[in-house]
């Protein structure tokens, strides 16, 4: 087989191969819990892809991960590790919920952007302290962001369960207890779903699908980040600082300034992570608001190798794993904990295998290009 063809094929097959191997590894666990691996995977796939609404749900699942993967990757590009996306998005969602329920009487085209903006601001503010400490005092960002994650959990708990709890919930005949949640957001602050839009094109998306406009927004943002990194002076400086802060400084760039702005940007993007859930699904913030998007974003960024396209694709893969897991849980009666272990296992193996495969492909490519360059000798060739 022609080598160049082989490389292209490997490129395309690499993620599939990675998933396959990961499946193989998880099979061991599945066998261990006395299930038939084949049946589990068939269920995952058939459940996920049989119907259009299921695909829409996968994309809905992917939406927060696109944002968090992007947020983490902006940090990685500067050689900073923003573990704080978790806390930043919770604070973002919280402030958005606050703005969403407390301001009344605004038209949607003002209220919704304002709500989104407040999430961005909250995420940015929550990333301010760690980067300030890093730049001014040399505190490692991993330490400070982990601490701030804990603080954000507590702050939100306090506000939701105490200060801002919705006391107006009506109990039926005094039965049951009220939900620990904040008041519901105004309808003007909510993000419309994509259902009606998609139905115009003949897709038949049922009501229970919450895919909303944050998904295309995430993709636009990914494209925007790509342009920012590769085409603007700021992105240029960000990459230079990430690779070699000494050389950047010598050329007149201020690494501290770049770290500062880049990290705040990362936090601002992180602020958006929870909005698809908040403004497109729940409509209120409670103590059970989805967690872990920030941490999963690290895996997404690693797997997507910090490239915006890669991040979108790996977010969708994660969305699929979630969806498939639901199927396995429902139809095969596998306990939730096992499904979570399975998921984590697949994620880890996929991340590792893609890394190994990509290194291999890169080496092969180098060899290949050099073979085709035979005959030419050193010298200027533009």
């Amino acid at each position, binding site marked *: 087989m022609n080598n160049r063809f082989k490389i292209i094929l490997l490129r395309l097959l690499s993620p599939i191969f990675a998933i396959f191997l990961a499946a193989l590894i998880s099979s061991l666990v599945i066998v261990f819990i006395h299930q038939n691996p084949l049946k589990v995977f068939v269920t995952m796939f058939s459940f996920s892809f049989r119907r259009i609404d299921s695909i829409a749900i996968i994309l809905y699942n992917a939406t927060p991960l696109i944002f968090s993967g992007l947020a983490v990757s902006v940090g990685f590009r500067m050689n900073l590790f923003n573990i704080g996306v978790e806390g930043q998005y919770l604070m973002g969602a919280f402030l958005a919920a606050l703005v969403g329920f407390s301001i009344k009487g605004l038209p949607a085209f003002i209220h919704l952007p304002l709500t989104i903006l407040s999430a961005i601001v909250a995420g940015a503010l929550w990333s301010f302290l760690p980067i300030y400490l890093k730049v001014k005092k040399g505190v490692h960002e991993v330490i400070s962001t982990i601490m701030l994650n804990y603080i954000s959990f507590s702050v939100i708990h306090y506000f939701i369960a105490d200060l801002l709890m919705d006391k107006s919930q009506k109990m039926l005949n005094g039965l049951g207890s009220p939900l620990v949640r904040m008041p519901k957001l105004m309808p003007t602050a909510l993000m419309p779903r994509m259902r009606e839009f998609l139905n115009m094109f003949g897709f038949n998306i049922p009501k229970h699908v919450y895919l909303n406009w944050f998904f295309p927004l995430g993709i636009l943002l990914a494209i925007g980040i790509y342009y920012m990194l590769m085409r603007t002076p700021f992105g240029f400086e960000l990459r230079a600082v990430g*690779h070699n802060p000494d050389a950047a400084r010598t050329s*007149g760039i201020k690494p501290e300034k770049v770290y500062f702005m880049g990290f705040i940007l990362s936090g601002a993007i992180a602020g958006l992570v929870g909005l698809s859930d908040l403004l497109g699904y729940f409509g209120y913030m409670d103590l059970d608001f989805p967690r872990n998007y920030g941490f999963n974003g690290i895996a997404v960024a690693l797997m997507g190798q910090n490239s915006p396209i890669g991040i979108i694709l790996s977010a969708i893969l994660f969305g699929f794993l979630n969806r498939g897991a639901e199927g396995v849980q429902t139809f095969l009666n596998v306990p939730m904990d096992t499904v979570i272990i399975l998921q984590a296992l697949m994620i880890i193996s996929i991340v590792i295998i893609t890394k190994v495969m990509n290194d291999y492909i890169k080496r092969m490519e*180098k060899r290949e290009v050099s073979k085709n360059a035979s005959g030419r000798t*050193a*010298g*200027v*060739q533009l």
Partner: protein
Amino acid sequence: MINAVEVKNITKRFPGVTANDRINLEIKRGEIHAIVGENGAGKSTLMKILSGLYQPDEGEIYIFGKKAVISSPVKAIEMKIGMVHQHFMLIPRFTVLENIILGSEIRAGISIDNKKAKKIVEDLCSMYNFSINLDSRVENISIGQAQRVEILKVLFRGADILVLDEPTAVLAPQEVKELFLNLRRLKQEGKTIVFISHKLDEVLDIADRITVLRRGRVVGSAVPGEITKEQLARMMVGKPVLIDLKKRETDPGEVLLSVKNLRVKDPGGKSVLNGISFEVKGGEIFGIAGIEGNGQKELAEAIIGLVNIDSGSIKIRNIDIKGLSVNQIRKMKVAYIPEDRHKNGLVLPMKVWENEIMGFQRDDKFYKKPLLKLKSAQDFTRSKIREYSISVSSINQAVEDLSGGNQQKVILARELSENPDVIIASQPTRGLDIGATEFVHEQLLKKRDEGKAILLISADLEEVLALSDRVGVMYNGSIIAEFKPGEITLEDVGIYMLGGPEKKVSGE
């Protein structure tokens, strides 16, 4: 006699370039073999193949007569080939001894037998006349000594063939002499030495045989004594080379750079510049001679704004630069060629064109809100590549894939492009071949004739004396002598470089 190394038809290709093109080479046991050639000729690539860092695409290697596949540096050392890296790979906080034995410790049960190791290293030192204190920390030793540590490292691992890539580029003349003494001694003891250098005088001095590479091919070999420097240069370049600088008389203009009583401390609070004063006028090259590590780096970095001034002042065109940022100082038309190109000069994983505009990415020339002007930047890079004959296969290549000399040219082209008034040039020709060195010297003299002020810091004494209008000798954070080239002898300069009697022979 059996050959230590025999290379047959070795070919190594990189994207867009054949770095080694059917190379044939024989290196006899116990000889000092020099490899010379222009920047990008493929010297380092060949050495990396010998030391297992690269695999050849074609061809065969025989080590001591046996066919060898050198698949990794570990394999290379098993075959008794040791590479002395140009960028030292030493751990500053460890002692000399610890650095030497690191990774191949002698074990006594589960612990490390330091006594035995020390004995072995001491024996090596006395056998080859290496003078070095095994207990001093590497952070406190000079560059020449660090290099000795690197050589001891490979000797400790049992190397019989030593590969040295441009070992003299970082050394002061005195240190070169010492290195050569060591190398001759190693040769006497039967070691084989392969080394690369751009300094032809050195090559003619120490080598037993010389192989010349040009554009990836062996174009000839020579024996010193049967060939002159000019002939050798001609072989390398393929046409006659004029090694002759024309320095015109100029009238220095107004003072563009003035340093007064400058004191700088290192982060640990130790004083590294102890009250330095000098002035450089437009149309003048002020040279700083001295062994590296005597404050030259800090002086350059203080002027460009990278380190804080403790006391004293630096003025550019009579404006005090205290508190200004690197960017602000650069915008005052100050250019800086840093001595360490990998640490300060380049962002290695980024592309050639990106490195070529580094620092100018927000200038109107390359930036139209909100985007970089890709086309301008790339056209600019192409024109610089032509002007400086930088050998690249594409402007989108990562700059780390360029040969050492070509990396240096990328920096020079960038720093001299914006028509600076003040040029701080630290080791500007380090690693450049004779042609390129000549070109840079011409450029610097041209800038001088145009009325620019140039501070030339170089470990290469000949370079300093040839280019400068005035020379200061730095020792231990002070300028201990100042003179005009020709006023005092080379020997006297050497004495000052080693800290000789403080005396001011001002030419004014």
